[in-house]
């Protein structure tokens, strides 16, 4: 019996060419470790990407990989899964690739529930094209293409996914390897399209854009790690989220002495899309940023399962073309 693979076994011989300090390095490590942890078979694992910094990812993972064209990775991945539903397919995309040029394909891969993991590295900027504002950039983002500040409202990746009908929505942070690894494992275990937004720091063009909640010293207060069945507490349990039925909104409440009893705090129900909507809509800095598995719908058949319904394997032939040629009216011309 061969030894189980380690994270190192999922590294290729290619020199990694992201900028020094790029958040992608941490994500790559987390993914390679996850692959080892779940016992992934490199021969049956495929990383499919589009275009952008994040999309170089497949070159660095020792499995099958396909670096495709801008925005279209979900469409390639869909065709691949239809051809071979047994493959374990990961789609790697970014905020520009997945939500701007490729928004349409992401929408449809999610609503179809193709059984892939979609990792969207969100750095709120176009990196590879040298720093233009992206569809997730906040209003006022100054960039080479928006010198006076961008004026378009940003899209929330996870709310987009929820609206698209995604059945698994989670969030993680590039540098929080432990939590990200757990999130990736949960995404992998989900049968269907699993959407994971990863806050990724672009050290060159958008450095520290997430530091208001990712910095160690503020993390406790500015992040809430949600877990199914557990109360929505943060700040080491000193604060929690409760639901105000009058306003139909969440509120941050102090818990315990001088605050509300813990029974007032909402318990996370990852199967509740309305709660997911609320958790994903919390404005910063008044609310913490929700991380972890925010939404996981009850099991539904993956698209490729329904696609091949009735057939044992793709392309299985019950009939012959020679017979099909004779369907309908056939007449015979006799000799002579």
């Amino acid at each position, binding site marked *: 019996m061969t030894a189980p693979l380690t994270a190192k076994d999922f590294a290729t011989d290619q020199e990694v060419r992201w900028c020094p300090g790029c958040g992608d390095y941490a994500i790559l490590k987390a993914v390679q470790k996850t692959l080892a942890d779940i016992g992934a078979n490199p021969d049956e694992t495929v990383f499919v990407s589009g275009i952008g910094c994040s999309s170089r990812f497949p070159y660095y993972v020792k499995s099958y990989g396909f670096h495709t064209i801008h925005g279209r990775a979900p*469409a390639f991945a869909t065709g691949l899964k239809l051809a071979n539903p047994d493959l374990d397919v990961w789609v790697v995309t970014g905020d520009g690739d997945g939500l701007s040029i490729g928004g349409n394909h992401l929408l449809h891969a999610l609503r179809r529930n193709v059984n892939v993991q979609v990792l969207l590295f969100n750095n709120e900027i176009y990196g590879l094209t040298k720093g233009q504002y992206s569809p997730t950039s906040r209003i006022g983002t100054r960039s080479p293409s928006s010198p006076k500040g961008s004026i378009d409202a940003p899209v929330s990746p996870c709310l987009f996914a929820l609206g698209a009908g995604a059945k698994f929505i989670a969030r993680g942070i590039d540098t929080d390897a432990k939590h990200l690894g757990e999130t990736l494992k949960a995404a992998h275990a989900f049968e269907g399209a699993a959407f994971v937004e990863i806050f990724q720091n672009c050290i060159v063009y958008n450095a520290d854009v997430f530091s208001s909640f990712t910095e160690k010293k503020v993390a406790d207060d500015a992040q809430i790690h949600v877990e199914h069945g557990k109360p929505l507490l943060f700040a080491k349990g000193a604060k929690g989220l409760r639901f105000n039925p009058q306003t139909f909104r969440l509120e941050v409440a102090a818990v315990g002495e001088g605050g509300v009893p813990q029974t007032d705090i909402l318990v996370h129900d990852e199967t509740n899309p309305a709660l997911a909507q609320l958790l994903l809509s919390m404005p910063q800095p008044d609310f913490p940023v929700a991380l972890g598995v925010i939404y996981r719908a009850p099991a539904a058949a993956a698209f490729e399962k329904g696609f091949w319904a009735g057939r044992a394997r793709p392309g299985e032939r019950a009939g012959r073309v020679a017979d099909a040629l004779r369907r309908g009216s056939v007449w015979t011309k006799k000799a002579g």
Partner: protein
Amino acid sequence: MTKIRPEHQSIVVRFAGDSGDGVQLLGAQFAESTALAGADFATFPDFPAEIRAPVGTTFGVSAFQINLGARRIATAGDAPDVLVAFNPAALKVNLPLLPKGALVILNTDEFNERNFAKANIRADPRETGALADYQVIEIPIKALTLEAVKDSGLSRRDAERCKNFWALGAILWMFGRDRAPMEAWINRKFAKAPDVLAGNLAALHAGHAYAETAELSAEIPQFEIGAAPMSPGDYRSITGAEALALGLAAAGELADKPVLFCSYPITPASPLLHHLSRMGDLGVATFQAEDEIAAACAAIGASYGGAIGVTSSSGPGIALKTEAIGLAIAAELPLVVVNSQRGGPSTGLPTKTEQSDLYQAVYGRNADAPVPVIAAAGPGDCFDAAIEATRVALRHMTPVFLLTDGYIANAAGPWAIPDMADYEPILHNAPPQAPDSDDPADLKRAIWARDPESLGRPWVAPGMKGLAHRIGGLEKDIETGDISYEAANHQAMTELRARKVASVAKFIRPQEVEQGPERGPLAVVGWGSTHGVIWRAVEAARKEGLDAAQIHLRWLNPLPDNLGALLRGYERVLLPEMNMGQCATLLRDRLEIGVIPLNKVSGQPFKIAEILDAIRAHYPAAARTPKPAAVGAAQ
């Protein structure tokens, strides 16, 4: 009464009415009865872009033309000998097509002031002398239909809709065709709606009886079109879209691979999607993607995964797929791209035919990105073209364009059912064994070890043990497949991609001359759906004593190796095509051969007479021998 035997043993019938009148169904069923009688035929459905245009308007007129004969039929006919017009608009639109003496059957129930106004007709054409040159038969088809189906229980609206079957009954009598197969078809088709079934059957019989016995029937002529001389064997009627669908399924079977057809609805390509979606038992699956781009990408993803990826569209959709096709070229993956061409640019003429995407197929990509291009010559030929396109895609690991057009896709004709045993299996370059080595370079070289003849690489798909590797659209090292920005390597890869497509010429049949001499005064060169019309025009020219030849191109990229020498053997080359001269450009570009272009972009196929006139006009005077002219215009 005596039956009329048309001069050329063939006759052209055109049905025209509102798009809701059911003339396409009427035409298709008449074609079926023609087929069962053993006559040869070709059909041309000519319908508007609107699904249900306002009733009675000229732009809502839908028509179906069929040329049937007791001899070989090559086209749907230049001009109708018989026109069945269901309303004034249909008469107005189609009257200019009719030769003098043509038979016009009018549904008089619709000839009223209201409908004249809708069709912008000032006065009743029956009274203005507009029909003086034609034999006119007036039949109140609507009223007779309503009378015939009154016991069926159908509403008046639904009862009226049976009138296409009434007309079918009458036309079956006119051509002495058996009603039984039509009855059987109606019984099958409408089994779930007994009242509609009863109405349609009643209308069919009533129309037939009316033509046979009504007092007017002395005026209704009967035509005798017997069986055509065809090779012995089994035949069926087939449209280009059906033949293409079956051809793709056959290609999958011959390659022993699943076929994944990924497409987005577009006119006139959608029938292919519809046919294939019913061929699940033949190893085919269809994926209706969110857009044209996704359809191409999913097909490439499928090919990457080891299935035969096919995508299909018409010009505007193909334009959207272009970037993805470039990736398949770079990644060296097989892909079949079907283009059912239509009139353009932009949305253009969605339901009308054109051959104007040849530049797009041969030249239409960023960078030096060659792909093989094949064109189907007619409905039945779509079957073989699909198999051939797939064979090349798998052998050379490249996207292949298969050009068809709106005319071929919807036109039908008899088709000699092929024997699948006559087709060679479709082979691909088998994946290598995983090398027994720790050096990743050994694996990479094995994965990119291209066949020296075809330059196709092994088809390695995810899931294959020990062969995991990465591919993409960045330029790659010619030996290892690693990303390479090295200057000499890009030069070598670009040349390799060019040589790969050029190498297809080694595997295809040399160009043959279809009729006429192998050297001579004039060759008519065509490609795609003009095959039939050129065949008939050249045949007619030869009967006139003009020693013209017909050469029909199948592979447009690369061209057959012998084509240049062959064409140089003719004093002149005439090239009819439904565009502004795209194939003419190609021949000038690739072979430095100048041709006389004959271009038509009206959305309508060529007429035989147009090509015959051009042959006469361009035939070198010195080559004319004083032979007696024998036969006049034919169709």
